[in-house]
């Protein structure tokens, strides 16, 4: 008797929903073992994480605060991943967005009327993010340079540049780090607690992107390029142009995330703007299976994990990186389980007269 994987005729919807949920449970179990081995009580820790994230209005507002950049960057990543362009540079694109928004709000638009600052800073943030993703996109479209490495390397460049700005070039007088505070006219309005209007922009864009994927030709073409570049070429789709256009928008979304962190939350460029949201965005996009509405939900859950991690650091003196370990662990069972969307596991008894070699790549049981 052996176990055999057989290709399904249709993608299993049940597996598509079940696998991410099971992955979440597996990640929590793994985290529990790790916590127990390292001498912490997993139950107490998880309860504290949950309580920290949802136990108070303050906690909930902090979850929404972190949902905002996660949602925007994950939408950007989703857009690029849809066509299998591996943009793992959301972190750098976010950082450059924050830099440009700060630049406009503090320096570059001094002579313009005050009310123009907020829209200009947002646009500048989007443009900077677009530029940061556009470079690798052009290199990919023209010379076929590997995009995973170029987008990733630019993360380091962007973060170093922003550090140079808030530690040296733009440092506010009398401080060790951080720029001057941006003028209040350029602030995004707050919703409650520290949660700000950036969240609403993110939610609106998620819906827009969902509609685009579902109803427009452009969305359709992206999916074709992602699933089969050869087919896309036969259909006369200009892949190079799509890569550049899509990546400009993908980068702009992450740039917007950075701009909204400055304009809505920090009100200055300072340490703590690039804390890895752009990497978590990769996990979110894949967990949500590149569905923009799914991204909203997963971004919220991931934000809760991060806030929970911060809480246990403050209250239990456990490392906040527990949240990061759990997030990192999520993708592993998810990837392992994804096969069941396309393949069904069947038990084959050779005595039934079936050719035991049929449908190979078997897992011997």
């Amino acid at each position, binding site marked *: 008797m052996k176990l055999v994987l057989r*290709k399904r005729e249709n993608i299993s919807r049940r597996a598509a929903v079940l696998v991410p949920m099971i992955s979440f449970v597996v990640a929590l179990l793994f985290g529990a073992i*790790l916590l127990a081995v*390292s001498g912490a009580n997993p139950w107490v820790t998880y309860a504290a994480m949950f309580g920290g994230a949802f136990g108070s209005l303050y906690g909930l507002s902090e979850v929404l605060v972190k949902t905002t950049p996660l949602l925007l960057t994950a939408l950007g990543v989703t857009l690029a991943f849809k066509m299998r362009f*591996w943009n*793992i540079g959301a972190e750098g694109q976010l950082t450059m967005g924050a830099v440009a928004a700060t630049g406009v709000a503090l320096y570059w638009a001094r002579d313009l009327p005050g009310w123009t600052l907020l829209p200009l800073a947002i646009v500048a943030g989007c443009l900077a993010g677009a530029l940061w993703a556009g470079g690798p996109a052009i*290199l990919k479209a023209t*010379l*076929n*340079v*590997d995009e*995973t*490495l*170029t987008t*990733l*390397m*630019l993360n*380091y*460049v962007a973060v*170093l*540049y922003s*550090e*140079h700005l808030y*530690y*040296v070039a733009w440092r506010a007088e009398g401080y060790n780090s951080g720029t001057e505070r941006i003028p209040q006219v350029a602030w995004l309005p707050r919703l409650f607690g520290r949660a700000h209007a950036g969240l609403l922009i993110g939610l609106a864009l998620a819906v827009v992107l969902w509609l685009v994927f579902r109803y427009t030709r452009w969305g359709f073409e992206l999916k074709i390029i992602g699933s089969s570049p050869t087919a896309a070429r036969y259909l006369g789709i200009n892949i190079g142009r799509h890569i550049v256009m899509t990546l400009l928008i993908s980068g702009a979304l992450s740039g917007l995330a950075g701009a909204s962190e400055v304009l809505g939350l920090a009100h200055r460029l300072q340490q703590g703007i690039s804390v890895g949201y752009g*990497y978590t965005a*990769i*996990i979110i996009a*894949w967990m949500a299976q590149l569905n923009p509405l799914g991204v909203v939900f997963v971004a919220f859950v991931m934000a809760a994990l991060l806030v929970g991690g911060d809480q246990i650091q403050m209250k239990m*003196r456990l*490392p906040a*990186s*527990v949240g*990061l*370990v*759990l*997030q*990192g*662990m999520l*993708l*592993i069972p998810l*990837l*392992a*389980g*994804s*096969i069941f969307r396309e393949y069904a596991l069947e038990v084959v008894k050779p005595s039934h007269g079936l050719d035991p070699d*049929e*449908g*190979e*790549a078997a*897992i011997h049981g």
Partner: protein
Amino acid sequence: MVEILVFLGSILTITLRAGTSLIYGTIGEIYTERTGILNLGVEGMMLCSAVVAFAVAYYSENLWLALLAAGLTGGTLALIHAFLTVTMRANQVVSGLSITLFGTGLASFLGERLGPESNNRSLVGLIGPRFHPLELPGMSSIPLVGALFRQDILTYALFVLVPLAWAYLYRTRNGLNLRAVGEDPQTADAMGINVIRIRYLYTLLGGVLVGLGGAHLSLAYAPGWAENITGGRGWIVIALVIFAMWNPLRAVFGAILFGGINAVQFRLQASGTTIPSAYLNMLPYLATIVVLVIMTWWEALSHRVGAPAALGRPYMREEK
């Protein structure tokens, strides 16, 4: 004249020291990619093995045990990647990314949790045993070339490992088989080569070597543990594999190039240059992009393909 030689010699010494972890990583990743498996988890594997190596060395005071632990750590993470991509046929890019994301988080957690009570359970800032440079008497005083003989034992091991890795890949039956799996798994399978086994085996081997590279960081190059000890070296390794055209001998040139950039950075910073340090620190990352562009361009112009033909593609026997 003598001063210039001494100066260049010292740059070369640092270059080799900085390049060692890169060479281990690059050779490991070359072996993995040669079987058709792209493992983007190098950064996470390096970080995890660096922290484990330091922790084991700190408590056991046994550097060899620390190396063993680092190899096992890199190998274990690589096995997860092999399981996901070979058995479960997951997307190799996403699987590798997940190993890096998981490894980064885990390394950070371990670094804050494995330390002694007296240091708040953190490993940061502790001093443990390390591999010291061993000067070979006589040899190390030769101008310039002497730089080769002022290294630690992990760097000396490369003098054997690099040619061995090359010879195994190009001059043995096993090497031929593993290259066949990366170029054309269908044909290799038809010839009776066990594709699955070979992919698992060399992904594991790659992970062990990457782990040793990580150990060199925390036990020799920058002894101790700091959150971001790799500084993107795992990613630079991936670029170096392309730069080396998947050839272990050429990995040395790439590592020397990047080790050299590190050495020049150090020298400039020490000399009190007016260039902001942030811009100097960007150099390796910008250089990686430049190297990639040049290599891709050159490959296109000369119609040479360095990458194994089946790189990144899962092997499915039933879907010929």
